[in-house]
């Protein structure tokens, strides 16, 4: 195995830079890993969103401009920390019990296996043909353009794909002095660690350290997030990392990172826009559940956060419109396609249910999620109810595009639905663990 130490160092330094951008956006002086992790995700998402307007202003220098912004943000945060004592740690200083330590040790072992696979594996199809290729174009051209490789027509559909993973790869290439397909993998280790940190933080906010570490281990063990396409440089695991961040912010009341992370969902994969819409719907539902009479006032009170999400999502949609690329994989929403789509519903439902029950892929995660969602919808708090409803709805909504596919239907569902579910799995695991914690509270078992 060749471990690219230089590129690991650069990826870590860039992660710190992204986190510094996040610190400024969130007006934070983080002192614990969970808070730094949220700053990292917020900074990443914002930099990737800003790449589009920067590309309009500096068509050949947008990546360089992003690097300069990251450097300035890092310098600002370093200076402000020199002149201001950091806030006392809000971390849990209690000793962890032996079981929790063993579970966290097992999670670290799985992370080590992911690292080994990540550095040993070559690219899988999308990792090379889409994401690393987009990074190469970004490196060569210096910014987002409306073109793909000269002469390509079918692959033009990749142009509007969101730029976070390619941007990170292009920044890594800029810092190391040249683009090399074989040196981009370290960035995926950053996403993987961030995903696990977010998951632990999300579960720790509402359950015991032991349950939080069980949930984190379960997430680490999801094959699509720790092997195969994740090690082959696909963007599904980074999308799951961003969603894990959103879940962590959702379960921490009043978390200021939430709107930035919801916007960040749109910067990783195209379906991130659907996830962002579902997250917004879940939050609106929570506000309504919490206080039906106070709903309008709550919406007014959250105007600033709503504006942040609207701005980030709006920039994403503008980029898609600007790129002007058509996606021939899905048919238009006209009468013949709608009729065909309605006829496909039972078949797509059967294929998707069969995937949810695929033991080799998921163990018993989705049956457990289903049971847990019912528990939370019936007995959970307003926050838990909303989360369970939003994730349940997401498993259905994410299957919707298959109704309009122009690919062979069975093949498309077989190749794509498990990856969509993998992106959703941090939220599904959170629902399962929260339901278990609630059930334990009835029996008085602290677990």
């Amino acid at each position, binding site marked *: *195995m*060749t471990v690219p130490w230089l590129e690991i160092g650069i990826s870590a330094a860039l992660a710190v830079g992204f986190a510094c951008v996040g610190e400024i956006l969130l007006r934070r002086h983080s002192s614990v890993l969970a808070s730094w992790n949220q700053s990292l995700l917020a900074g990443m998402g914002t930099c990737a969103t800003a790449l589009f307007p920067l590309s309009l202003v500096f068509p050949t220098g947008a990546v360089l401009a992003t690097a300069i912004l990251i450097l300035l943000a890092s310098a600002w945060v370093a200076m402000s920390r020199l002149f201001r004592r950091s806030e006392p740690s809000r971390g849990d200083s209690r000793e962890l019990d032996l079981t929790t330590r063993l579970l966290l040790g097992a999670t670290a072992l*799985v992370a080590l*296996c992911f690292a*080994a*696979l990540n550095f*040993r*594996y*070559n*690219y899988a*199809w999308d990792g*090379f*043909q889409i994401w690393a*290729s987009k990074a*190469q174009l970004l490196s*060569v051209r210096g910014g987002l353009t409306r073109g793909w*490789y*000269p*002469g*390509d027509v079918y692959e033009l559909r990749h142009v509007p794909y969101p730029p976070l993973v390619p941007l990170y790869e292009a920044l890594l290439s800029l810092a190391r002095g040249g683009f090399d*397909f*074989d040196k981009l993998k370290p960035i995926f280790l950053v996403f993987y660690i961030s995903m696990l940190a977010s998951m632990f933080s999300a579960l720790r906010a509402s359950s015991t350290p032991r349950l939080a570490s*069980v949930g984190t*281990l*379960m997430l*680490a*063990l*999801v*094959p699509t997030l*720790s*092997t*195969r396409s994740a*090690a082959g440089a696909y963007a599904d695991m980074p999308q799951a990392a961003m969603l894990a961040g959103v879940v962590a912010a959702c379960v921490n009341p009043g978390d200021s990172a939430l709107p930035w992370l919801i916007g960040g969902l749109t910067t990783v994969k195209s379906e991130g826009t659907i996830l962002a819409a579902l997250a917004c719907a879940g939050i609106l539902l929570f506000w309504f559940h919490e206080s039906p009479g106070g709903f309008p006032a709550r919406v007014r009170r959250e105007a600033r956060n709503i504006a942040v999400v609207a701005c980030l999502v709006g920039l994403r949609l503008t980029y898609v419109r600007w790129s002007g690329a058509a996606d021939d994989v899905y048919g238009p929403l006209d009468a013949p396609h709608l009729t065909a789509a309605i006829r496909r519903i039972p078949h797509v439902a059967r294929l998707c249910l069969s995937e949810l029950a695929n*033991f*080799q*892929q*998921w*163990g*018993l*995660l989705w049956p*457990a999620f289903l049971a847990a969602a019912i528990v939370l919808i019936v007995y959970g708090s307003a926050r838990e109810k909303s989360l369970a409803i939003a994730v349940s709805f997401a498993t259905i909504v994410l299957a919707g595009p298959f109704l309009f596919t122009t690919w062979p239907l069975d093949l498309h569902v077989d190749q794509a639905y498990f990856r969509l579910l993998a992106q959703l799995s941090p939220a599904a695991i959170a629902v*399962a663990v929260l339901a278990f914690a609630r059930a334990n509270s009835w029996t008085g078992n602290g677990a």
Partner: protein
Amino acid sequence: MVVGASLVSGAHAIVADLRVAFRDAGPSVFTPVDRKQMATVRAALPAAASLLLVATADDAWHARLWQRALYPEHIVIVRYTPLRSDELKRFRDQYAIRYAVSLGVAPPDPGFRSHEDIGSLPGLPGRVWFGELEP
């Protein structure tokens, strides 16, 4: 039980993938065979010359591998069979293309004046042809 099932499915996937990764994966997305063939083509091409690459859809991975490997020094126009002569002519005129690479078990002929067989696709029965096109 749910955690146990996760352990079983996760551990099974990790062990299977570690086996594949440490038995089959190489240090680069470009195999030594790819690199040698690409170096042969690079050495024969004039600076900044564009290249036509034709292949069957079965060789799409390798076609795009070549395209990315030579970019941005050389623009590689990839076309798959069935080839359309009007389209090839349009690209040849637009990008001033004089050379082509052809991939496949029976590599398609985009109108070679002459060509050489520079080896097989790594691990596959397909061949790689490189040559100059008819003017």
